[in-house]
């Protein structure tokens, strides 16, 4: 099918491609990384820079007593030993609540604790020294009196009436509750057949290859703070540092250099961030902190951690009618800041059942505190949980009725005549391509042949499973996501374009780059929008001082919102160029065009180059008529104003082979048919999908933060926590359907989370399909060999 000979399986161009938009072009910025010339935050070295290290709590829950620091302070190279009290004076606490999550509560947080520690690994004391090694030496001689308290660890135990409370002032360990109700599920279940699930989803974590890092550099002479930080959201951190340390926002600059992976993990505020900024303010010198891998496991946000009980009511003809859901999720000791820890669960209960026509729906969400690492948004927030719950229910109903998994889905999808469609949970779909994607996947997998092969192999004792999973994905969010709740998180983007005096284009934009190719697609859009070679467009991102403020990168918004911003900015610059050229050429601007870097007549014959236009505007503006401005810098800001979110959709297929004697699963192949609207660069979309699929397969089979009874993380290292390796992963076949959103001219929606949203659900269905003839089923992710053997009754 592919890859005969050549070895390279680069995506083909989009059918609706233009000069650049829709082309599978490599990323210009990747060459620098391939030459070893990347500049990540830990590579930043500043004069007089000091290094921070943290002493962390060995207990999950303890009262903090006396801290003995004198000996550490006297160690060679040590400049300061700082505790909670030092920061309490200079940093206003932060609380991870937003007003649109009514009733959400969370304990205020400070850089370092003053009275209690609430998870094992919480930073307690900071040493700042000439080198990281000297700082770590000093940690060895610090004494802390801890009075151990009973920890809250297990999700169910945390809700027990007699459970110890993490927040002593609160009535229980519940941080947030919500219920969604549409129609009458009680009636539906009374009248119909039903299936039920009780699914558990383990905690896992991002494991970015580059750990979190920042260098804070305070200059008291100008009262200026510059922070070099490995993050995807520099504007958000600029706002946070300014507000919480009482600095002028205009004097706070956050620079995100090359970022070695983020996946949502690096957009949350961490206690160490505030301590490093605070230490720079106190010491008036640059201070660097780079988390080592053990610190990353014990302090980077964790993800998921759900127990979901749900049931589906359906009729004899296979028509689905109602779903009831009870999701309990454990989020660590407090709600994360500034995006809260309620979003994950909120999206679970709103996304369940979303692709299907349901008349009745009820979902309860309970967000529970535990003495574990904080849980918050990570790639595909809530989607994999909602998808797995829904798609497992659908498969179970199909089995009850003797229907094929493809057939039951085909009968129940929201149909093409129903758009715009509002789900019972309140989401609105502009237009999806559910049935098209389903049919495409059926053909792509050669499904009948796969089923025949499966049956034949079962005769020989080989247990293969085939699973599919439909998803919808939230992208292009409006302020409905965070802004309405009071968060200083922008849903708009800004782009400044400048035609330089030499006739090149410099682009500064507020979306950011973590390797997904934001800069590449913006370059393609601007080059096409203005009408010049892509090599002549230079894109700058990730610096609050030199780019316009905007939302940056989260919730799959870069291509859809940032891309539209760039396109409209390009239109503005093009209009400026044509106005100037028209004045010089004594032509009507509307009769001119820009192609391949030259102003042309409508028929394409060149009149003057962009270099000539720019030279003229910058150096010989005296030649322009008085009413024609020489300005060749334009700015454009854009925020979506139509649908609150642009939903993408698609479907995954998974083929696995389960060994019933060892419980080991071989992932043989994975297919994705996805629709993210207009595709700007299919090569990059494919790689976003593939990377996302593998992160989802990690959650499905390998990745879990395992805790002991006392709240100790048991596998916080790269040898104990399993991330997917090359030898375990399958080739992934991808096809595209394009349903552009009409909310923008560009028509693009997000794609970065689509791979993760459904790959674990497809794998869950595939494994259970393999286990079906053995009379077993798994209902917990990750599906480890042990859990599969338990399901089979072997152990």
């Amino acid at each position, binding site marked *: 099918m592919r890859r005969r000979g050549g070895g390279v*399986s680069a995506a083909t161009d989009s059918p609706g491609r233009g000069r650049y938009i829709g082309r599978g072009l490599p990323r210009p910025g990747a060459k620098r990384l391939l030459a070893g010339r990347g500049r990540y935050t830990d590579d930043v070295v500043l004069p007089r820079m000091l290094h921070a290290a943290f002493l962390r709590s060995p207990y999950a829950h303890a009262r903090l007593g006396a801290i003995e620091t004198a000996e550490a302070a006297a160690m060679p190279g040590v400049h300061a030993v700082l505790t909670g009290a030092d920061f309490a004076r200079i940093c206003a606490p932060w609380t991870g609540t937003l007003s649109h999550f009514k009733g959400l509560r969370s304990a205020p947080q400070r850089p370092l604790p003053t009275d209690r520690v609430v998870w094992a690994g919480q930073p307690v004391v900071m040493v700042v020294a000439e080198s990281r090694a000297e700082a770590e030496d000093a940690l060895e001689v610090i004494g802390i009196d801890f009075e151990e308290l009973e920890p809250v660890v297990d999700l169910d135990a945390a809700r027990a009436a007699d459970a110890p409370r993490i927040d002593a002032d609160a009535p229980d360990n519940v941080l947030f509750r919500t219920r969604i109700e549409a129609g009458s599920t009680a009636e539906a279940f009374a009248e119909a057949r039903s299936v039920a699930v009780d699914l558990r989803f383990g905690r896992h974590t991002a494991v970015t290859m580059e750990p979190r890092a920042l260098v804070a550099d305070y200059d008291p002479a100008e009262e200026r703070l510059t922070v070099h930080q490995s993050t995807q959201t520099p504007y958000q951190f600029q706002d946070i540092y300014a507000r919480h340390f009482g600095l002028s926002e205009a004097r706070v600059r956050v620079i995100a250099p090359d970022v070695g992976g983020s996946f949502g993990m690096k957009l949350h505020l961490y206690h160490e961030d505030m301590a490093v900024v605070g230490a720079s303010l106190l010491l008036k010198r640059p201070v660097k902190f780079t988390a080592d891998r053990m610190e990353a496991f014990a302090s980077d946000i964790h993800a998921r951690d759900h127990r979901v009980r749900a049931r589906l009511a359906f009729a004899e003809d296979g028509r689905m009618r109602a779903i009831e859901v009870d999701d309990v999720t454990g989020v660590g000791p407090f709600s994360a800041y500034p995006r809260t820890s309620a979003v994950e669960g909120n999206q679970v209960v709103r996304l369940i059942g979303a692709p299907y026509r349901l008349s009745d729906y009820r979902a309860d969400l309970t967000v529970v505190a535990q003495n574990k690492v904080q849980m918050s948004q990570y790639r595909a927030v809530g989607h994999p949980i909602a998808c797995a719950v829904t798609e497992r229910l659908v498969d179970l109903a199909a089995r009850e009725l003797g229907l094929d998994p493809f057939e039951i889905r085909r009968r129940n999808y929201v149909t093409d005549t129903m758009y715009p469609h509002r789900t019972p949970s309140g989401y609105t779909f502009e237009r999806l391509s559910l049935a098209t994607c389903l049919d495409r996947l059926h053909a792509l997998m050669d499904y009948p042949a796969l089923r025949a092969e499966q049956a034949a192999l079962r005769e020989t004792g080989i247990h293969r499973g085939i699973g599919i999973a439909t998803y919808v994905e939230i992208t292009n969010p409006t302020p409905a996501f965070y802004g309405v709740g009071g968060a200083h998180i922008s849903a708009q983007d800004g782009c400044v374009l400048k035609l330089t005096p030499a006739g090149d284009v410099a682009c500064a934009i507020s979306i950011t780059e973590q390797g997904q190719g934001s800069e590449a697609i913006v370059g393609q859009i601007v080059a096409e929008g203005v009408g010049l070679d892509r090599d002549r467009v230079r894109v700058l991102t990730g610096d609050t001082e030199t780019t316009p403020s905007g939302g940056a990168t989260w919730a799959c918004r870069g291509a859809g919102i940032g891309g539209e911003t760039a396109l409209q900015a390009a239109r503005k610059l093009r209009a400026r160029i044509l106005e100037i050229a028209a004045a010089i050429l004594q032509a009507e601007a509307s009769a001119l065009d820009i192609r391949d870097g030259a102003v042309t007549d409508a028929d394409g014959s060149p009149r003057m180059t962009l270099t000539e236009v720019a030279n003229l505007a910058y150096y010989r503006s005296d030649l322009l008529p008085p009413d024609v401005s020489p300005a060749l810098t334009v700015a454009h800001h854009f925020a979506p104003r139509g649908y609150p979110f642009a939903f993408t959709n698609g479907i995954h297929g998974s083929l696995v082979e389960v060994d019933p004697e060892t419980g080991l699963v071989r992932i043989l192949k994975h297919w994705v048919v996805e629709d993210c609207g207009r595709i700007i660069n299919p090569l990059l979309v494919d790689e976003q999908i593939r990377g996302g699929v593998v992160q989802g397969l990690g959650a499905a089979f390998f990745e879990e933060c395992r805790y002991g009874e006392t709240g100790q993380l048991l596998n916080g290292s790269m040898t104990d926590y399993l991330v997917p390796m090359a030898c375990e992963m399958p080739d992934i076949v991808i096809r595209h359907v394009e349903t552009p959103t009409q909310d923008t001219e560009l028509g693009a929606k997000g794609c970065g989370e689509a791979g993760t949203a459904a790959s674990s659900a497809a794998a869950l269905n595939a494994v259970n399909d393999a286990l079906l003839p053995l009379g077993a089923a798994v209902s917990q992710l990750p599906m480890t060999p042990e859990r599969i053997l338990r399901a089979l009754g072997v152990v």
Partner: protein
Amino acid sequence: MIAPQPVALTVNGAKVRRFVEPRLSLADFLRQDLGLTAVHLGCEIGACGACIVNLDGRPVHACLMLAVQADGMHVETVEGLSDSGAIAALQAAFHARNALQCGFCTPGILVVALAFLKDCRAGGAVPSRGAIRDALSGNYCRCTGYEAIVDAIQGVAEAACAAEAAA
């Protein structure tokens, strides 16, 4: 603390002499003392492969060695391999296939892929995809899902084999 010790080694073709603390890892030495920041630290326990460099021509984890142990040896990092052109074909294939995203794991993968392809050429066969995946199993990548990396390495292997056959 033990006093700094003298080391003399060859790094990317240039002779280097320094005094280093015996506890300093080779990776920290290359990054901090020599500014060779293509050496990346992802785990510091030899699991992730981001710090892999060539030591006397073979890939090793720079995080698992002390700088003093490299005394008298030859080290090549991606900076040097890039300047010498040794990895030019791999770089071109990775670029065309978009076989990297954030780029943090990439230097270690390039060093491993170079040695792997050298071994394959000695064996005279184009490696299978499975063999490439096995060879990469000491290199974690969180962005790509690996397939593009396998494609890129396979493409270089096939081109090298075809060139040899034509010669």
